[in-house]
């Protein structure tokens, strides 16, 4: 019965939808954007979400979490996706939080996870170095060389770090050995934002969400700040990226649903030539096709979220299936939404264009459709 929501899940879904509508509707994103907010993220709202326990949903209870699963977290992200709400779930909870939960020692977990769950500490996960998500996820030039004191000195540049300019701490992926494309030789580090040599440059991105470039110039980190095993970071990295990919797909699903529902409402109310434009068969058929694609999208997202919770082997394959599909469908639905809204659809006054902008950024984040179809095929052995 993996596709049927439990009562608890339904209650969480309702609460998340209410929170999104009341506390972080699209006007919230607009206020941050048009007010040129310095960080583009409201820590106040993040704290409110933390009070509801959401950043801790997937974290273990012993570290302040709720000990629930990604099925639950997905419902929250889906709700936030509907209002395009800026949040720190991907950066702090799913990427960095998962890395710590999966790879850290007890001390590190104790140090960081409760602060993540409480919303006090924001993390960013610094791994992308190129213009696009690279094959095998692992192309890494950033180098961490071992120092005499047993610590490391990190040099490198990260190209597109979600919430990079907001974070209090980073999980940095750097190479301690091997060639740029080698799976072996990667190491994860916990790096304080305040360390000398760490600089960030906020990027103003088309969806008004948050990403930054992160420069690491001779950043000295202690041996104790290695996350997991030296040189074996890829084991954590693979799992963390799959989780984040699926979580992002859940957020995208929310955006798709909202854009579609707004468009349906428009088709029913907007009149042209004396009839609702939704009575024109060509538009009907396009809407019906979108409906199919969205239903399929919903299924793959739900399945992928549940696969994480069940620790299934097919998580990588489902992650790529979900991201490939959601990327295409989000762009398709958001594009159709703009077109079907007509003239007002391309004005900034209407929200609908915001979904198109978000679709463009989301499809590229953590690998676009072509990347994930390629990976889906590779995982299928062909």
């Amino acid at each position, binding site marked *: 019965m993996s596709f049927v929501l439990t009562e608890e899940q339904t209650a969480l879904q309702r609460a998340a939808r209410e929170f999104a509508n009341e506390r972080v509707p699209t006007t919230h994103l607009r206020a941050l954007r048009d007010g040129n907010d310095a960080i583009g993220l409201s820590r106040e709202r993040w704290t409110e979400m933390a009070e509801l326990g959401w950043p801790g949903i997937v974290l273990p209870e012993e570290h302040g979490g709720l000990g629930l699963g990604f099925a639950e977290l997905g419902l929250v992200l889906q709700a936030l996706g509907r209002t395009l709400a800026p949040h720190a779930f991907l950066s702090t909870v799913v990427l960095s939080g998962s890395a710590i939960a999966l790879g850290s020692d007890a001390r590190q977990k104790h140090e960081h996870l409760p602060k993540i769950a409480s919303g006090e500490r924001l993390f960013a996960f610094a791994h992308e170095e190129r213009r696009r998500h690279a094959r095998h996820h692992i192309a890494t030039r950033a180098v961490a060389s071992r120092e005499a004191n047993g610590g490391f000195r990190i040099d490198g540049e990260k190209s597109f770090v979600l919430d990079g300019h907001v974070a209090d701490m980073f999980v940095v992926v750097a190479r301690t050995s091997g060639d740029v494309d080698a799976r072996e030789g990667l190491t994860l580090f916990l790096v304080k934002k305040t360390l000398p040599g760490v600089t960030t440059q906020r990027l103003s991105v088309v969806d008004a969400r948050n990403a930054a470039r992160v420069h690491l110039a001779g950043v000295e980190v202690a041996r104790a700040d290695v996350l997991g095993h030296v040189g074996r970071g890829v084991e954590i990295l693979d799992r963390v990226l799959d989780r984040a990919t699926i979580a992002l797909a859940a957020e995208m699903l929310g955006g798709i649903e909202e854009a579609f529902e707004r468009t349906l409402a428009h088709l*029913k109310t907007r009149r042209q030539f004396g009839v609702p434009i939704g009575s024109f068969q060509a538009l009907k058929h396009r809407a*019906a096709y979108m409906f*199919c694609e969205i*239903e399929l999208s919903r*299924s793959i997202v*739900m399945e992928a979220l549940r696969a994480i919770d069940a620790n299934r082997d097919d998580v990588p394959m489902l992650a790529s299936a979900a991201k490939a599909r959601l990327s295409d469908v989000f762009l398709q639905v958001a594009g159709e939404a703009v077109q079907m809204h007509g003239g007002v659809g391309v004005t900034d006054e209407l929200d609908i264009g915001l979904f198109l902008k978000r679709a463009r950024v989301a499809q590229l984040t953590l690998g676009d459709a072509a990347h994930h179809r390629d990976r*889906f*095929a590779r995982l*299928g052995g*062909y």
Partner: protein
Amino acid sequence: MNDELETFRRECAAFIEAKCPASMRTPLVREDEEPWGGRRPVFTHPDTKPWMDAMAERGFTAPTWPREYGGGGLDEAHARVLEDELRRAGCRPALKSFGLWMLGPVLLQYGTEAQKQAWIPGIVRGETRWCQGYSEPGAGSDLASLQTRAVLDGDAYVVDGGKVWTSHADKADYMFCLVRTDPSARKHEGIGFLLIDMRAPGITVRPIRLISGASPFCETFFDGVRVPRANLVGRPGEGWTIAKALLSHERALISKMRDARSSEDVSLEALARRYLGTDESGAIDHPSLRDRIAQANLDLLCNKLTMRRSEEAVRAGLGPGPETSMFKLYGTELSKRRYELMVEMAGFSGLGWEGEGFEADELVRTRSWLRSRASSIEGGSSEIQLNVIAKRVLGLPDDPHGRGRE
């Protein structure tokens, strides 16, 4: 599972163990071994008939139908247990029958006691084979525009007209048939639901050749065919209501039958390896076809998950959700896409029609590819499905002039 069901499960297992020959626990591959029954049955495998009879004796060919008409009398829970056990043992279907899948359910609902007694036991036991007389030449998606007339003359209807797209009309014993009993009534009224003996004088059947070659479809012509008045199911004007009830069974059936000879069972990547080869990394050595194969596989996965989601919702008592409306549409469109890929990736080997120079499976695929083009037309075309989704699921308004267009 409660004790009672568990007991029944063991009963079923024992029944299968005792009654189902080993040969009937192998996959049914050859079309000519399909157990269609009827007055002129063809059993090319010696074990087919005994297995059918054993199942029919227990009413297991129609597990949920009342025992008084030969059915199994099981409730849904028990029927599912039986089904699970049959699947678990890999049993072949004991009986394929449009009577079971389509006519029976509406006969139970709309038939008189005498009609049920007369027709249902024969269906359950596979003694009568039925075909469906709905579509007419020129009617297309507009089923209700049917012109075949049935005029009452004493104790019989006299039927004149023709039906098309009737599967196995040349092999069936009876046809359940929509006829216009009152030409003066409005389009959807004045239709009757009539059971016709295919042996009656005045019936001519002509098989239809498709672009894919021979087909089970036929055209049937009625020229002054006399049908006993007692063979009318429901009231004279009630035919359309009954037809719609039956159509809902047909749509479920088409997706079921599609599964049977489905494009899903073909591994696109295996074919691609054979025809396109792989590069040093093991990837199919044709980037754009590989990308499309991945997409088709991915869509198939998502479609299967959606069907599972729908089933789970039904089992959880949430009823089928809006997603069920899309299965016919998406399934057939995806199937067409997969057959296009199969033919395309095979190159010149994918162009064979018959004869030498091609592998047997290649020739089958050519035909299947062409056959798949019909899937988005028959049983409610894709356009009709899109209309249905737009109206019933999305609630988009009707075309002001589009009454009944679905």
